[in-house]
């Protein structure tokens, strides 16, 4: 039982870290598809 609960917690923690990391990297389209000439 303990290993199961720990497993759930670990899964959520890893998923949370992944989510946080990816969302901070995810660019909105206006930044991703602009060049230096663009004034946003």
């Amino acid at each position, binding site marked *: 039982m303990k290993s199961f609960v720990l497993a759930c917690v670990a899964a959520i923690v890893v998923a949370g870290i992944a*989510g946080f990391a*990816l*969302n901070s*990297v*995810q*660019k*909105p*389209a*206006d*930044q*991703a*598809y*602009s060049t230096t000439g*663009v004034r*946003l």
Partner: protein
Amino acid sequence: MARMKFLCDADRCIECNACVTACKNEHEVPWGINRRRVVTINDGKPGERSISMACMHCTDAPCAAVCPVNCFYTTADAVVLHSKDLCIGCGYCFYACPFGAPQYPRVGNFGSRGKMDKCTFCAGGPEADSTHAEYEKYGANRLAEGKLPLCAEMCSTKSLLAGDSDIIAQIYKERVTKRGYGSGAWGWQTAYRETIAT
């Protein structure tokens, strides 16, 4: 009832991008989202051809068929629209669309790509016609005011036609007869399963 379609006369398009500019301005489309675009085949070579492309509002729209949350609907004028409230940004409509019409506000598919945006044939969305709420999400609703899409209205050579299928097909046929050549209605076979004989 009208059956709305787009027809880009590839023999007249001069790649001026007036259609793109008109659309962007009318709907205040953010940078990075391209509802309409001009593609040039064989750029710079003899036989160069440009075509303006956006959502074709297909018969039996593949985007609507694959959407996991069924956020698309077809109006009585056969315009294919969708609800940004229901959209989960999964990106499937882009994989199915033969014309690359769906656009997403975020790059990468972590959680969501944001709410899909595309050409609405200047017909807005599920919100009440010509309200601020509708404009915020989907842009102007010209059809509700009895007008046709602005891209076609602004086309400098009248290569891009938008309106009832029978009428624009007739215009195109007359054009082809008069000038003696025509490369056909690009995209019609894929979108509407019909062609205009030229």
